[in-house]
Structures are given as structure tokens and as C-alpha cells.
């Protein structure tokens, strides 16, 4: 199961510990990761600006690099998945637009052909590796760990493009958490945005209020931690929580872990190998629980 690893920007630049965990655990489940030369930003910020044709051309260029290697793309980020899948589906279904985009790409030497698929690592794990194989790879079940799953917006919507889960009642990440022996909790405000976009391009006070409401709901559900599959969500729940706590005077902490980190722990890797030590929001109770479960 060979895939071209599309890292994007956020993870290699700001959260390289997640990249390291991905490179460690995915091959152990039979997902071989290949690094083709030439990927750039997906480019979500350009697409976000609705410079549609530039965004399509840059995304098509990235997809064409995987096509030249004869590999489907695996991503670690909701935003990259959203941008690349949108472009892939749009260009596969619209020959005139494909021709226009390939005209823009002509001087780069790349051509979009529409021969590969783009999948988030959660889609690869859930749909291709399969829950049975993940369950059988668990060496240290995370029994009793209560996890609030936050899949994030852009892995869910629009569902006909993303093909992952119901945007208004998502359950796939919960299934993936349960496969590790942990307990996914039912919590309010699960489908609300993490607030990353609001923090960066909108209003920080509103973002803090949003984050506070989500964290309070996780705490009400007695979650030990949250689980995410998107670097922006991770950053918001980790660094964002630390910053918001100063403003809103939280008297509690809800640490967050990337799904791949929980997977690594359940597969028998140590806390050090799961790279959780560098997180900003730490809770001694969670650390004690994880230490006990992985001992």
C-alpha cells in the first residue's frame, strides 16, 4: 500500500513531531510512505482567498507529481485533503477547466491527468487498512481513556467531495478511537469549528470564547483528552488553549493528542516515541494514566 506522502506546510514547519510519528507508525500498518520531489503548499491559503484558478493550478501541479510517481496521495492534514480532493474531483469532471489549468501548468512541465486519488491518513486507516488490522495491531489497549473526538470541519464538508463521514453527526473518528481500546465520549459541540481561522483572520476574542465553549463541553463529558486529525485543530487545542486560558482564566486543562500519537501508544510505543512531551497543555492525571496504560 504505497502512497506519496503529502506533508503540506503546517506539520513539517510547526508540528514536525507529528510528521515523525506518522513516519513511524503508518509503515508498521503496511502504509509505505514515499516522498516524491516537488510538492508545494496545497495551497489552502490561496484557495481560501477564492483565487480559484490559481488554487486549482497549484493543487493540480501537486497531484500531477504524484501521478508521475504512479502513487495515490496520503495527507496528514484536513486542509490539504480538502484542497487537493476538491481540485482532483473538479478537474476530473470538467475537461474544459482541466484543459485551461493544464495550459497554465504548461511552462512548469507538469500535466494533470486525473489518474490518482487523494486520501487523508484517517481515510487510509479506516477505509484501506481497516479497523480489524488496527485492532490486531494494538499491544497496549488504551482501556479507560476517555477521548473527545474532534474530526474538524474540512475532513467532513462537503461530504460528496470528502467522502469521510456525516458532517452533522460524525462517528468515524470515534470508531477509530474505540479500535485502540479507548472510550470515545459523547460530547456537545463536537462539530463546531476549532476556531483556527477566526484566530488568524478574524477576531481572537471570539475564537477564545469558541474554544472555551468546546473545552467546557469536553470537560462536562469527563474527557481525559481530545483526539484530532488536523494540525490547525491540534494547534488551536494545544497552543491556542494555553493562550486562551490566560485570557479566560480556565481552571482546568483538556490536553489534545493527534490520533497518530494515540495509535502509536496503543501499538506499544513509549510516550517518548509518541512525541507527546513537547505539548503545551499537559495534565498530570492524563500523563499518569498514559504511563500506566503503556507500561
Amino acid at each position, binding site marked *: 500500500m504505497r502512497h506519496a506522502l503529502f506533508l503540506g506546510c503546517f506539520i513539517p514547519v*510547526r508540528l514536525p513531531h507529528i*510528521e*515523525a510519528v506518522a513516519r513511524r507508525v503508518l509503515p508498521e500498518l503496511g502504509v509505505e510512505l514515499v516522498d516524491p520531489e516537488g510538492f508545494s503548499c496545497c495551497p489552502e491559503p490561496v484557495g*481560501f482567498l*477564492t483565487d480559484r484558478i490559481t488554487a486549482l*493550478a497549484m493543487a493540480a501541479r501537486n497531484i500531477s507529481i504524484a501521478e508521475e510517481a504512479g502513487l495515490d496521495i496520503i495527507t496528514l492534514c484536513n486542509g490539504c485533503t480538502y484542497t487537493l480532493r476538491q481540485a482532483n474531483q473538479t478537474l476530473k469532471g470538467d475537461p474544459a477547466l482541466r484543459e485551461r489549468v493544464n495550459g497554465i501548468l504548461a511552462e512548469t512541465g507538469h500535466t494533470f491527468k486525473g489518474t490518482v486519488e487523494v486520501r487523508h491518513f484517517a481515510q487510509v486507516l479506516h477505509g484501506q487498512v481497516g479497523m480489524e488490522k488496527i485492532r490486531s495491531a494494538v499491544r497496549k489497549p488504551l482501556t479507560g481513556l476517555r477521548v473527545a473526538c474532534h474530526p474538524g470541519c474540512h475532513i467532513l464538508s462537503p461530504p460528496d467531495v470528502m467522502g469521510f463521514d456525516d458532517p452533522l453527526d460524525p462517528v468515524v473518528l470515534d470508531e477509530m478511537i474505540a479500535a485502540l481500546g479507548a472510550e470515545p465520549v459523547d460530547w456537545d*459541540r463536537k462539530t463546531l469549528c476549532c*476556531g483556527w*481561522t477566526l484566530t488568524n483572520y478574524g477576531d481572537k476574542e471570539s475564537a477564545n470564547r469558541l474554544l472555551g465553549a468546546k473545552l467546557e463541553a469536553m470537560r462536562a463529558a469527563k474527557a481525559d483528552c481530545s483526539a484530532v486529525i488536523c494540525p490547525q485543530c491540534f494547534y488551536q487545542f494545544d497552543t491556542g488553549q494555553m493562550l486562551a486560558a490566560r485570557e479566560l482564566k480556565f481552571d482546568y486543562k483538556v490536553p489534545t493528542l493527534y490520533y497518530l500519537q494515540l495509535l502509536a501508544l496503543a501499538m506499544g510505543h513509549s510516550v517518548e516515541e509518541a512525541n507527546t512531551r513537547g505539548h503545551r497543555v499537559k495534565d498530570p492525571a492524563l500523563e499518569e494514566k498514559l504511563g500506566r496504560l503503556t507500561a
Partner: protein
Amino acid sequence: MALAIRAQYLEEGRRRAAEICLKCGVCCTVAHSCHVMYDHQFNPRYTFVYDCLASEKGAANPNIWLCVSCHKCEETCPYEVSPIHFIEHLKGEGLTRNIAHPTIRAEVTQVVATGYAFPLTSATDRQRQGLNLAPLSPRAVADIVKIAEKTGLATRLKEAQP
């Protein structure tokens, strides 16, 4: 009551979608919708219908930057109007007219200059080295510049410099 659509900059497909908006407000009634949770000033119906469609100055309204692009309005709209796409269109207009949020302009400029949306710093180098990961350097810049010049993004960014 039919809405007078004054946003002449809308492309034809978007314009047709806009014309079927009945102002029903379902995008605002979904539980935990953005005007309740994200910011009390923001409401997709007001920002989308009144500012995006009924005004020529929608891109100047700071509330468009309170849209988090969560797509909940798209999921709940019974007529597939997709308010988010109009709001994102306004954000693009904002860049062209040099009134976009400075962070997004900086990010796009960064993408064209380095192939990454975020600056490559010595802190990143240290972290990656500690994790035995390959160092990062600007990537695919020549190709991105060719694309940006061909689509006009390079000109837009140049003209949008503060």
C-alpha cells in the same frame, strides 16, 4: 420578497445560485450555528444576503472575516445556495482591493515566495534535527511563480502591498 442582487462581480454560476436564495434563514437556525457560537456580530444570512448580494461594498465589511469556513451553512441550506462560497468570494475581492485581512495576504505572499504557508525558522530547523527529520528549504518556487504570473495572482499581490 425577491432580493435585488447588486453584486455585479459575481460570476454567472454564483449569480444563478444567489437568485434561488429565499432568505429562509435555515443557515442561521442550525444548532450551534456561527452567529450563536462564533461571534454575535456574524450571521451568515445578514453577511451573505445583505452584504454579499445586495451591496457593492460587501468586501469592505469586516464581518466576512468572522466566517470560519466551517461549511455548516452549506450543509443546512435547503436550496444548495452555499453561503460560504459567496463569503469566500468577498474575501478574494478584499485582496484585490487591498482591504483583506493582513494575515491572509502575508500567507499567500509567503506561499509564492517559498512554497510554504509559514516562515521557515531556525526553531523549525532545531526541532526537525532533534527528531531526525530532513531539513526544510524553499520548494517549487520557480513553478509557483510561473503559475502566479500566468493567473495574475502575482500582479494582485504586488498591487495589494500596503
